[in-house]
C-alpha cells in the first residue's frame, strides 16, 4: 500500500516553518496564521494521495494554504466582520515606536513588504523568498504567468522605492558580480 500519508506527514513537519512564514505574510497575524497552517496540514493529509510525486511539495502546500485563506477572507467579509484581518500586520513585529520612526525615515524592507498590496506581497513571497518559478507561483495563485510577472515587477519597484534600495547603490554590487 502507498506510503503517501507517511511521506506527506514527514515532509509536512519539515516544511512547517516555511508554511507558517507564508501564512504570516498572507494574513499579517501570527494567531490567524497558526490556525491557517493547521487547517492546511489537515487538508493536505486528507488528500495526501492527490499529491503527485515529482512535483513540488512546497508549491502544493502553498496552494492549499492560500486557497483556505482566500476562502476565509471572503467568508468573513460576507459575514460582516468589520475587523479586516488582512489589514492587520505584524510581520515586522513593529512597535509603536518603530512605526513612528519609520514615518520619518525610510522603511525597513520587512515593513515595506508588509505594506505592499496583498496581490503583490504574495507573489514576491513565493518567487523571491520561497524561490518558486514564475510558472509554479502562477499555479499556486491560479493566475496567468503574465500577471505573475507584472505584479512581481510592480512589487519590486515599490519595495525598492519604499525601502530606499536605489539603483546607484545597487549598481556597484551588480557590476562587481557581472564583471568579475
Amino acid at each position, binding site marked *: 500500500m502507498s506510503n503517501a500519508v*507517511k511521506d506527506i506527514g514527514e515532509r509536512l513537519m519539515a516544511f512547517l516553518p516555511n508554511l507558517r512564514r507564508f501564512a504570516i505574510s498572507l494574513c499579517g497575524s501570527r494567531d490567524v496564521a497558526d490556525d491557517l497552517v493547521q487547517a492546511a496540514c489537515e487538508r493536505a*493529509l486528507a488528500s495526501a494521495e492527490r499529491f503527485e510525486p515529482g512535483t513540488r511539495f512546497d508549491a502544493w502546500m502553498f496552494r492549499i494554504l492560500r486557497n483556505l485563506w482566500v476562502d476565509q477572507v471572503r467568508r468573513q467579509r460576507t459575514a460582516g466582520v468589520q475587523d479586516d484581518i488582512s489589514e492587520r500586520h505584524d510581520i515586522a513585529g513593529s512597535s509603536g515606536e518603530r512605526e513612528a520612526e519609520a514615518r520619518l525615515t525610510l522603511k525597513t524592507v520587512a515593513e515595506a*513588504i508588509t505594506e505592499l498590496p496583498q496581490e503583490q506581497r504574495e507573489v514576491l513571497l513565493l518567487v523571491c523568498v520561497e524561490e518558486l518559478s514564475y510558472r509554479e507561483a502562477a499555479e499556486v*495563485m491560479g493566475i496567468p504567468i503574465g500577471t505573475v510577472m507584472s505584479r512581481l515587477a510592480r512589487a519590486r519597484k515599490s519595495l525598492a522605492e519604499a525601502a530606499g534600495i536605489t539603483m546607484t547603490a545597487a549598481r556597484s554590487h551588480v557590476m562587481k558580480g557581472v564583471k568579475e
Partner: protein
Amino acid sequence: MTRTDFSDEILMRFADGELDADTAAQVERAMETDDELVARVALFIETRQAARTAMKPLLDEPLPAELKAAVESMVAEKTSAQAASATVLPFPLRAANDRRANRWLTPVAASLAAVIAGFGGYWLRGSAEPAPEGGLRVAAIGSPALGEALATVAAGEERQLPGSDQRFRAIATFRDNAQALCREFELDSADRSTVVSVACRNGTEWRVTFAVVAPGSSGGYAPASSTETLDAYLAAIDAGAPLEAAEEAKALKELQGGQR
C-alpha cells in the same frame, strides 16, 4: 542585432533566470555597454536579495509548541489509521478507490443536518422546476432566481433572492478538474439554517454538485464542520484556486453572453 528597449519585465526575468537563452544573451550583451541597463537589472537582483533577508527571521522563529503538537498528532493519527486499514482491510484495488472517494463524507456528516452530494445531482434550469418531493427542502435550489444569482453575483457579495426569504452569498468561483466553471455559495434561510453549496456549469445550466445543510447558527453563517466537509469535497474534485475578481467577472460575463 542589439536591442536597447528592454522592458522592466524582461529585465526582471533576466535577473530571476526566467528568460530564454537567446534573449538573455541579448540582455547580457547590451549590459556590457549600457550602465543604465545594468542598474535596472540590479534593482531586481537587489530586491530579491533584500526580500529574502528581510523574511529570514520569520523562518528562524521557533514554532509555537501548540502548532507543532497539533500537526504532529494529526500526522500520527493519519499514519496509524492508514497502517490499520492497510493490514486489516486488504481490499482489492477497486474497493480501496471507492473508499477513498467517499472518505470526505464520513467524519463530519454526523454533525450535519443533511448532506446532499450531487453525484447524481439535479439540474437548475432557466425555467422553474418542481423541487423534489419530500426529503430535503433547499427551497432556492432549482429556482430561476438562484440561477440568476449564480451568474451575476460576485464572490464576496450577497443578495436577497427575489421572491424568497433566502439570502444568497457568493463565496468563490473556480474551475474544477474538467475546467467547468463552478461557484461556491451559501444560502441563508429564514429558519436560520445555511446551505453550503457548489454548483458547476454544465452547458447552459447550473448543476448543483454539492450541498450541505448546516444547522442554524446565530447570524446565519455556516459553522466550521460544514466548511470542512466542503474543503474535503473541493480537494476531491481537484478544485482550482479561486478566481480573482477580474477573472471571475470575465467568466460570468462570458456566461451571460452565451445565454442570451
